[in-house]
């Protein structure tokens, strides 16, 4: 296996990217009584795993996205050596539930990794995600070694035309992005697009070269998440992305599920209480065609449990 093979695999899976959408329509219409084809599902007032169960149901279940024998990558935010209640990392119960859904849909392998900010082994442990993934039978992988990252080009990017991306991103059939909604000292807010910084090796480059533009650029990369699940259960309202104490956290018990990263970030911003247009990278990504920030154009299913 070498870089070329990874790239090939990346291209093939990239080419099949449009398929989930097609299947999505098919399953949403045929497999349930819900005739509607939703662009986004927003869920509130439940435990993470329950909100995911109910939310994904509206999109025809995980089988809309995951087929038998497929290789799935789940990319949560495991950036920090903090416990779940601190709102620094994606809720472990949510990650666990998604892994379980994938296996129920017949997935061959389910991998989970993040390129962390704090020491990765401590972050994997404190976040509870390592344990949760293992309990569900998933495979937790290190994101800490440059050897795992392959060079790719991003077509249409203004600044970030090249990046080194974790081989699992390129290599998996289905890519599920599971960020946590948080305040952020540099970008004001971190949700789905910002979470992609944990899929690449050199984050410093983004910081050095117009952070907002780089975040938007990466959203154009062909290997996009097939599904985004935004965890807004514990929300770090201030002092993000790491937080200082539990005082920074509001218990919002919410979740957003959609295939469109820009739409996800836009909805998450509103949920957080800021205008999407006040976040530069959302505006830029929208203007570059990475997705739609205008929520009024979307068919949204809203569920309050």
């Amino acid at each position, binding site marked *: *296996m070498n870089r070329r093979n990874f790239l090939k695999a990346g291209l093939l899976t990239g080419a099949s990217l449009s398929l989930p959408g097609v299947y999505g329509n098919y399953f949403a219409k045929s497999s349930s009584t819900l005739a509607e084809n939703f662009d986004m599902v*927003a869920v*509130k*007032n439940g435990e993470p795993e329950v909100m995911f169960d109910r939310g994904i149901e509206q999109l025809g279940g995980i089988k809309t996205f995951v087929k038998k024998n497929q290789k799935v990558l789940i990319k949560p935010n495991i950036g920090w*050596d*903090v416990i779940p209640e601190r709102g620094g990392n994606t809720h472990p119960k949510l990650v666990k539930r998604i892994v379980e859904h994938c296996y129920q849909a017949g997935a061959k*392998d389910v991998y989970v990794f993040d390129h962390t*900010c*704090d*020491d990765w*082994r*401590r972050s994997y442990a*404190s976040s509870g995600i390592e344990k949760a993934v293992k309990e569900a039978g998933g*495979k*937790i*992988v*290190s994101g*800490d*070694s*440059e*050897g*795992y990252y392959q060079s790719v080009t991003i077509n249409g990017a203004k600044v970030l035309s090249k990046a080194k991306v974790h081989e699992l991103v390129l290599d998996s059939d289905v890519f599920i992005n599971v960020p946590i909604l948080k305040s*952020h*000292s*540099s*970008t004001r807010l971190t949700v789905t697009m910002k979470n992609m910084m944990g899929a690449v090796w050199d*984050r*410093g*480059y983004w*910081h*050095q*070269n*117009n*952070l*907002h*533009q780089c975040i938007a650029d990466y959203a154009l990369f062909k290997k996009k998440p097939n599904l985004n699940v935004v965890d807004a259960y514990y929300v770090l*309202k*201030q*002092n993000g*992305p*790491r937080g*200082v*104490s539990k*005082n*920074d*956290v*509001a*218990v*919002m*018990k*919410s979740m957003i599920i959609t295939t469109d990263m820009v739409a996800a970030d*836009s*909805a998450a911003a*509103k*949920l957080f*209480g800021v205008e999407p247009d006040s976040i*530069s990278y959302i505006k830029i990504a929208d203007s570059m065609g990475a997705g739609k920030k205008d*929520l009024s154009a979307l068919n*949204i299913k*809203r569920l309050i449990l």
Partner: protein
Amino acid sequence: MNGSLLRKIRIIVSLLFLSATTLLFVDIYSSVPVSVSNKILFLQFVPSVLKFITAISLTAAGFIIILVLTILFGRIYCSTICPLGILQDIVNWISNKFRRKKRGKFNFLREQKVLRMVLFIIPILFFVFGSALLLNFLDPYSIYGKIAVNLFRPVVAGSNNLAAFIFEKFKIYAVYPFALKGYSLIPFLITAIFFLIVIVMSWIKGRLYCNTICPVGTLLGYISKISLVKIRINEEECLSCGICAKECKSSCIDTDNKTVDTSRCVVCFDCIPSCPTEGITFSNSWDDLFKVNGKKDEEPDRSKRNFLTSASVYILSLSSLAAQVQKKIVVTKPSTKPVFRNVAVSPPGSFSVERFNAKCTACHLCVNACPTQVLQPSFLEYGFLGMLQPRMDNITGFCNFECKACGDVCPTGAILPSELEKKKLIQIGKAKFVKENCIVNTQKTDCGACSEHCPTKAVHMIPFENNLVIPEVRDDYCIGCGACEYACPTKPYKAIYVEGNKVHLTAKKNLELKKQEEVNTKEDFPF
């Protein structure tokens, strides 16, 4: 007692100690819990003494057990517990494989009494005057630690990474690569020189290091002169054939005069099975001790004493000179605004740079235990006297807020363990912001990597031109962990760095944080 059985027991016990001790230093997966690590190192002599001086407690009483063992059975520490001693036995064993004549390469050698005394007293004087430098260079445990961390650990990491590379091809990620960070040449070279010296000495002369240089060996050696059971020649049985002397890797058996220099004997029991008669035994010596009376020590040698005093004064003055020329550490390469750190940052729990320099023997156990690898062996960052002692290297990593591994493992008490909540407030240094180098200022774009990583939000973002935000440091909350410096992406210079605190302080707890209001989760969505 049966000599060959004793010898076998000695070999098994020593190999157990050596492998357990080595594991602690090359444990890249951090698989050994602190409690186990502390137990394994409990009996290491110099660390235990130092810790006992710092924090008088039973957890540091290992050296007392060693003293008792020595009084009873001689230098058991040297033969079965000291990792450097066992390493030399292994080198010696390998060297025998390369010899045509399998047996008997040693001869009795005269004791280098003056050298032993000098090398015993000077490290103590150094220590009393506030430098652990010579213990760092002479304590066998600390030398072995350096060898294991700087030479063996890279080999372990390399083999692991090769395995990880192969497994990765089969999509198995359970074995993961371990990147050794901040590996610098000079500590590696110094350690390599130590290693070479030890190998050459033991290859040719067995336990020469232990019998002429090692201060622990000298101390325990002189104590074992009065030990209960010792290796002794039975004058009636001994044929003065000299076979045992040729087997003795301590070169301490004088068969012509039928005496054993117990101060150099490391009770390895190699001699007993070699004896064709029962001329050499491991037996009770106190019977004789009480019989012999009036045998006084010789008069003290004045010239030797004078030499000792002048030598130690000379070396002390040399080292204080070296402390004067303490080098400035270049944080970054020269550029628009080069940045210098005036005071090196010592690990949390060391209280002050001075105290740390005085207590740390540079065994590098903490270097391996540190999960972020921010602890790196120094060269001259602390000055000559602190050579090889670990320092916080924020280019390589940063001190993990929730971690206190270094204090937990430190066997000498140079880094004392602290409660996690207390450790989180130990201010080892303060962040300094260099606006001239900051991306927000120079490129007029958002960055904030420093503030992102700051665990206390001492580095927070304040409004700047064009709706941008720029970092500001609040000294009171800063603990000097170096996360900001590590994360700062400016090249080639950092826009934020940590200036060490000579004496560590206590940071204020960030109490400005307002508690978030309860959210009504049944409310409609805002979109």
